[in-house]
């Protein structure tokens, strides 16, 4: 154990005994069955991260095919039908299967560690959420490979996605993929909120929470209020297609703009749902690189919360071209511009933190620098398109493609790569190579700019989005070729990252508990963390949990070690309040997820999916709720102690 460890008084023998006991209690079975029944947030979080990254690669391959098609004018590599599926699946993958789940996954893995909990709240629901998400992802790609991939974009506008203009089951695959991922996201959000509210280590009052945890909290609340909109919209679409409701049929009183309002009321917060956790990651990386608390903590928290609120006031700026009334537009312009302020404040605070310290130029920090540069570009184009008049020119052109990729790749994926380098040692116990990491960063940064910077100009020269080809006479060929070369560079950089990961897993340098000298509790336990997370739940004494620990290192005592007993604390001050028993590993979440999967996939084809699937789900959840003998005995024992 290193100096920063949260462990208590030095008594190695007692600690070893405690370790043995806790390990016996919290350790889960290994192997395939163990994998299927796991309820450990680290195990679920890890597979969430790996799965989401796999979808990032798949989505990237879609993009690579699209870029190959667009490299030259009038190219015939990919026809319009496949191209439409590719860009639809690309967007759907990146938003629903990569970005949101990845950010949730980082929360699932690190929030319990950062707040000093033994596991996430509702561990079984956590496993269920993962499986549902996985089913959704498999559905989308099964769709693509059987020529049933969504074809009307990730935004899936009706009537193009409606029953008349999208025959077959392609849009239904979209609708149910969305349903699955929304269920998973909402579940993840509820768990993260409750973990943050009720499972914080004693002493970690709200004002002492790490900024990453704040970011996750804001994100989770945004998910709670945003995701139901798209879930409802996709449900309406599925009903229009399956049982002939008329939500989007103008001839019977329906409205095509209803879809757009519902979709973007989710769709814009979605961007911040992806971006806000990335801000939290940047704060942790900067704080470790400078060995400083982030300058202006209260302002940072306020900025995150304000971003969360403002994120809901912008949806109509995606609809300026539909001709909504002028007055309303001005409101959305003002809101869209205002949201730049909290982002600006955070950048200034980071700079202030860095200014007064001497940062170590590690790979995570390089990614942070890259993030600021890319994000400012994306942010500025964002402010430009908040202007109604300017947006009416560049809306739905490659200018927007450039903007959104600067914001999402620059604002979210770049910090995410930084976070991978930063936390990889915590998850695996091994360092990633700094040399390969620097190459990865350089290639990635170059690739992003090479791919997306020219697209601004393409948009202004008239190239619209979602075109499978363009005529030679447009003169867009050269810039498009440049963008394709850039895309290849990005692909190369990601390949390099994979090599780096593989190399480190096989023979990386052993990292130790706290290689970056981080401030948060996750660095206070071993790398990788033990099954029970913390030998002793620490009592938190300051904002930087590890840096502020006094030499006597106070901890929580009196929690049972023979069962999954965890501590519940109060909402504001994190005073110890009660003891709670977490469930042991079980296969029930998997069964319930399969029942859910059967229900919604059957609903693509027949309304009978509802009663049949409903019965299956009821059976699964009743079995879930009913305690088996073992867990009953255990619970009774805990209640009597």
């Amino acid at each position, binding site marked *: 154990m290193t100096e920063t460890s949260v462990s208590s008084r030095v008594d190695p023998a007692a600690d070893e005994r405690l370790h043995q006991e806790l390990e016996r209690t919290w350790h889960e079975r290994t192997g395939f069955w163990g994998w299927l029944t796991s309820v450990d947030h680290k195990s679920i979080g890890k597979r969430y991260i790996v799965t989401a990254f796999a979808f990032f690669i798949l989505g990237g391959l879609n993009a690579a095919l699209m870029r190959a098609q667009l490299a030259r004018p009038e190219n015939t590599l990919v026809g319009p039908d496949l191209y439409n599926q590719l860009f639809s699946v690309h967007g759907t993958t990146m938003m629903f299967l990569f970005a949101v789940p990845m950010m949730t996954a980082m929360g699932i893995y690190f929030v319990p560690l950062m707040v000093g909990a033994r596991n996430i709240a509702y561990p079984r629901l956590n496993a269920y959420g993962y499986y549902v998400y996985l089913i959704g992802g498999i559905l989308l790609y099964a769709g693509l490979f*059987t*020529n049933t991939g969504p074809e009307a974009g990730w935004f899936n506008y009706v009537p193009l996605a*409606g029953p*008349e203009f999208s025959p*077959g089951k392609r849009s239904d695959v979209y609708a149910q993929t969305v349903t699955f991922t929304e269920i998973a996201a909402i579940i993840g959000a509820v768990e993260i909120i409750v973990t943050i509210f009720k499972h914080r280590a004693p002493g970690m009052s709200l004002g002492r929470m790490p900024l990453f945890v704040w970011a996750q909290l804001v994100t989770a609340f945004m998910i709670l209020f945003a995701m139901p909109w798209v879930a409802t919209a996709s449900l309406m679409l599925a009903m229009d297609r399956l*049982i*002939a409701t*008329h939500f989007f049929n*103008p001839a019977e009183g329906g409205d095509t703009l209803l879809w757009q309002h519902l979709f973007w009321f989710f769709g814009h917060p979605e961007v911040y749902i992806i971006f806000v956790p990335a801000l939290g990651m940047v704060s942790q990386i900067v704080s470790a690189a400078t060995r400083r608390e982030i300058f202006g903590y209260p302002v940072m928290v306020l900025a995150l919360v304000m971003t969360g609120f403002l994120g809901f006031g912008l949806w109509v700026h995606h609809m300026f071209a539909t001709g909504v009334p002028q007055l309303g537009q001005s409101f959305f312009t003002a809101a869209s511009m205002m949201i730049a302020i909290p982002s600006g404040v955070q950048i200034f605070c980071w700079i202030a933190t860095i200014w007064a310290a001497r940062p170590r130029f590690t790979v995570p920090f390089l990614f942070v620098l890259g993030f600021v540069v890319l994000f400012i570009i994306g942010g500025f184009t964002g402010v430009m398109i908040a202007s109604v008049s300017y947006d009416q020119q560049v809306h739905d052109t490659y200018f927007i493609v450039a903007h959104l990729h600067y914001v999402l790749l620059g604002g979210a994926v770049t910090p995410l790569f930084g976070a991978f380098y930063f936390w990889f040692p915590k998850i695996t116990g091994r360092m990633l190579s700094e040399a390969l990491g620097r190459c990865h960063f350089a290639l990635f940064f170059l690739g992003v700019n090479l791919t997306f910077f020219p697209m601004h100009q393409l948009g202004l020269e008239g190239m619209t989005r979602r075109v499978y080809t363009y005529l030679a006479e447009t003169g867009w060929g050269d810039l498009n070729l440049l963008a394709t070369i850039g895309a290849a560079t990005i692909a190369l950089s990601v390949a390099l990252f994979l090599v780096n990961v593989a190399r480190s897993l096989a023979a990386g340098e052993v990292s130790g508990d706290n290689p970056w000298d981080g401030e948060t509790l996750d660095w206070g336990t071993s790398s990788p963390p033990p099954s029970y997370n913390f030998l002793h739940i620490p009592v938190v004494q300051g904002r930087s949990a590890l840096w502020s620990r006094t030499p006597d290192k106070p901890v929580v005592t009196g929690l049972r070690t023979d069962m999954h007993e965890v501590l519940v604390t109060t909402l504001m001050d994190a005073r110890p309040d009660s003891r709670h028993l977490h469930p042991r590993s079980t296969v029930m979440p998997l069964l319930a997820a399969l029942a859910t999967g059967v229900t919604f996939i059957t609903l693509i*084809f027949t309304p009978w999916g509802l009663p049949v699937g409903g019965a299956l789900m009821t059976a699964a959840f009743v079995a879930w709720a009913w305690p088996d003998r073992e867990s009953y005995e255990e619970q009774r024992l805990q209640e009597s102690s």
Partner: protein
Amino acid sequence: MRTTVLRVCLVATALSACEREERRFNPPPAAIPATAQRVTQLQPGPPVKEVLVPSPATVRSPYEENAYGVAQGKTLYNQFNCAGCHSQGGGGMGPPLMDAEWLYGSEPQNVFETIVQGRPNGMPAFGNKIVSDQVWQIVSYVRSMSGLLRKDVAPGRSDDMYVRSQEQATHKAKPVVAGQP
């Protein structure tokens, strides 16, 4: 053994999905048209001398399991004003198409002949006015109106006024060949 069956089922499912979803833009040319006897003097547009008809008995209907083709057929059904006589399947001047009764047979080939050659008492001959590929699309759509197509292939509602329940919810009724019109 069981895995083989399972694998066959999986492949079959996948293939049927592929077939259902394919957007066939450039169909291979059908069999060489043979000249057939026309059975009516009615036709859209000004009179022409002869009607060219592919011999349908030898051609498999290409859109029976293709949702896109059926949807195209539905669009064409409305655009070419089939609804003018047959309404949305309920019939009017022409016989209803959503019931189980077929005057000239319910097989795709029969319907194809009906459209191309025309029929006595009012059905015009669309022979060389609609390319055979589009005729096949209309054929499949017409059959979907009485539930003769798989439900996952038959169309859902259109963005039109509500007149009848959607084709994909139509139960299959065993076709009967009715007597003389």
